């Protein structure tokens, strides 16, 4: 029994953390927000913008570091690592609110293709960062970074855990097929996610068996859970700093018990979600029969912890947090979006309930 990461895993995490803190600061996250007004007339991401080239650079830097191929077999050009190796990296991409489909590309599609033979021959491009992958799950139709992804997979479940399927989406009014649907970003809460709404689509073939599909979905939920923990920590860090500085009634607001208790609750949720996320990574990495149950437990805890963080950190900021000029909203909206992506907390609890046979 040893519940801790190896020194190598920590070192890799630290390297990615360093890279993201330099190359993906708030102004880069902000630069990924679309310019101009949306259909409602609002300028959602308004504020100082970084050079848009920097947005692309983060992704190629990550590719260079090998991060995008972390879960791809070595003979496919990856690092051949397991969930326990990348879960901390996913957490850091959450902390940075990385404006790219890291989970979909590196945690879901690339390892799925690596496992099922890469019949479409795209794995090399996914690993070297020249192509991004997307994934929709649970009959969803919203593709994150749908204007950029050029390889799209649907992960669905029909009739219980044995009914999982992974299909490549190719035809119909799917991504890229139809100029009207292509690159038209939906107006959404987190415009930095570049959501594209998928129309009716078709699939030409199934990728792998039901087990591979289930594991692909579980990796998506796990990676998202890790990102939520990272996002929660970012919101907490921002708020602790603000609460120590901001003065009202002659004292820093952080001296107020109400503020302390709000933030203690945020920290508590994250402190108990994180080990569950790491344990789920271990269950996945070791092929535990409880892997799906553990992933679902982790995602529900992480979703709930992130939502507590959203509510409490906004409240502790007050009006300044309620503006798009201040950075909090970048992380807050990502967290709110991801808390429902890949199954919300209640969906995952129902799955745990099924596993517990109740």
């Amino acid at each position, binding site marked *: 029994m040893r519940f801790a990461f190896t020194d190598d895993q920590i070192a890799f995490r630290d390297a990615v953390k360093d890279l993201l803190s330099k190359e993906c600061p708030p102004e880069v996250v902000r630069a990924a927000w679309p310019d101009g007004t949306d259909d409602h007339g609002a300028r959602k991401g308004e504020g100082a913008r970084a050079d848009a080239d920097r947005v692309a650079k983060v992704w190629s830097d990550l590719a260079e570091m090998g991060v995008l191929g972390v879960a791809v077999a070595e003979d496919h050009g990856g690092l051949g690592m397991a969930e326990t190796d990348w879960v901390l990296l996913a957490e850091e991409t959450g902390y940075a609110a990385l404006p790219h489909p890291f989970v979909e590309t590196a945690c879901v599609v690339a390892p799925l293709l690596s496992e099922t033979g890469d019949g479409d021959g795209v794995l090399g491009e996914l690993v070297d960062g020249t192509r991004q992958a997307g994934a929709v799950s649970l009959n969803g139709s919203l593709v994150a970074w749908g204007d950029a992804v050029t390889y799209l997979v649907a992960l669905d479940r029909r009739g219980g855990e044995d009914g999982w399927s992974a299909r490549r989406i190719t035809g119909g009014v799917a991504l890229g097929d139809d100029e009207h649907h292509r690159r038209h970003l939906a107006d959404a809460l*987190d415009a930095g996610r570049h959501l594209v709404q998928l129309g009716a689509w078709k699939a030409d073939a199934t990728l792998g068996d039901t087990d591979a599909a289930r594991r692909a979905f579980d990796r998506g939920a796990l990676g998202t859970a890790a990102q939520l923990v990272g996002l929660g920590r970012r919101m907490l860090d921002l708020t602790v700093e603000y609460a120590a500085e901001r003065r009202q009634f002659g004292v820093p607001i952080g001296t107020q018990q109400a503020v302390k208790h709000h933030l203690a609750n945020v920290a508590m949720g994250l402190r108990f979600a994180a080990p569950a996320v790491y344990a789920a990574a271990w269950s996945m990495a070791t092929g535990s029969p409880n892997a799906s149950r553990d992933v679902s437990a982790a995602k529900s805890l992480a979703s709930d912890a992130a939502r507590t963080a959203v509510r409490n950190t906004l409240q502790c900021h007050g009006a300044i947090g309620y503006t798009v000029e201040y950075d909090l909203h970048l992380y807050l909206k990502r967290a709110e979006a991801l808390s429902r992506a890949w199954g919300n907390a*209640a969906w995952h609890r129902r799955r745990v309930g099924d596993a517990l046979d109740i």
Partner: protein
Amino acid sequence: MDLTWSADEEQFRAEARTWLEAKLAAWRARHDNRILSGDTTEGFAQHLDWERTLFDAGYAAVSWPTEVGGRGASRWEWLIFEEEYYRAGGPQRVTQNGIFLLAPTVFEFGSPEQQAHILPRMASAQDLWCQGWSEPNAGSDLASLSSRAVRDDERGGWVLNGQKTWTTRGAFCTHLFGLFRTDPASERHRGLTYLLVPLDLDGVTVRGFGRLDGDEGFAEVFFEDAFLPDDALPGGVVLGGVGEGWSVAMATTSSERGLTLRSPGRFCATADRLVNLYRERSKDPDALDPGLRDRVVQGWIAAEAYRWQTLQTVTDDAEGRSAGAASSFVKLWWSELDVALHETALDILGAEAELDNVWSKGWQFALSGPIYAGTNEIQRNIAAERVLGLPRK
């Protein structure tokens, strides 16, 4: 106890319902059924058109006397109108900060000349008022504000310096009402004056900026040696006396925290829409978490409780039993109810919740409720100290 409406009141309701239905449809049609947020440049103009439609029918400020642009309706009729307004899907009132926050203060503290000038122009949306309370270093702690007005007797007016912020719809308004420090030696809530300021004065700069949802709902207002002449408004620019700003403002603030800004109609309508959303979506029960029905009903009941509580409060008020500081409980209830109703809707919508729609936009708006008009933490302090009598220190 009699919880029925009189025949006259029912008649008032029926008229309002018919009128709203027709006029809202016509308004939407005039704008190609594409109504933008009132907190954007284009949307604000659409909403002004609606405000003038309301005014023409005497519905802009139903409870005001007809002489100043209202309809002389009773408090009960006001509640009825609000119920019908939100039931019909009427939009947020872009004039609300004037009508619901400034006007009660003008009625209480304004001279007859001020009332005669300000109120009709406000009701008709000729003058558009925004609130100048908060400053960068004075949010919850309002008494710490530092924007100042220096008397210039020679020129006959005030010289304004400082900055207001988080001024709702400031970028679209013509006038600002706010507190300024007129006694430079004063501290905290002393030495403040309630001033009425046209925003087109030289030295006044308004910069709109985005709220959480990106709408330009906020503004910063900068005053740099802006000269406010005493005759900028007929009856003068001081409301309630020089140095009396704090107590005058508190009257407005308690309106903001109390009944007038948040009539139950808005929340009951939201709750009804939530019930409808659930009914629609539960046709495919597999897609919904079974716990959601309980949350929908809980929201509906809480809105209903808010309605009953309001009817009790209006009765008490009419019979001289004032609620006083109890308005803190009201603000806590509606603001947390509004978040809960929208959060439940988002959970029903599932993945769709991420897309902009009436519920996701409404959720973002609801999140401001526990913050503005005195954070809910401060409201809980007030409730505990002033209503329950717990010791301050």
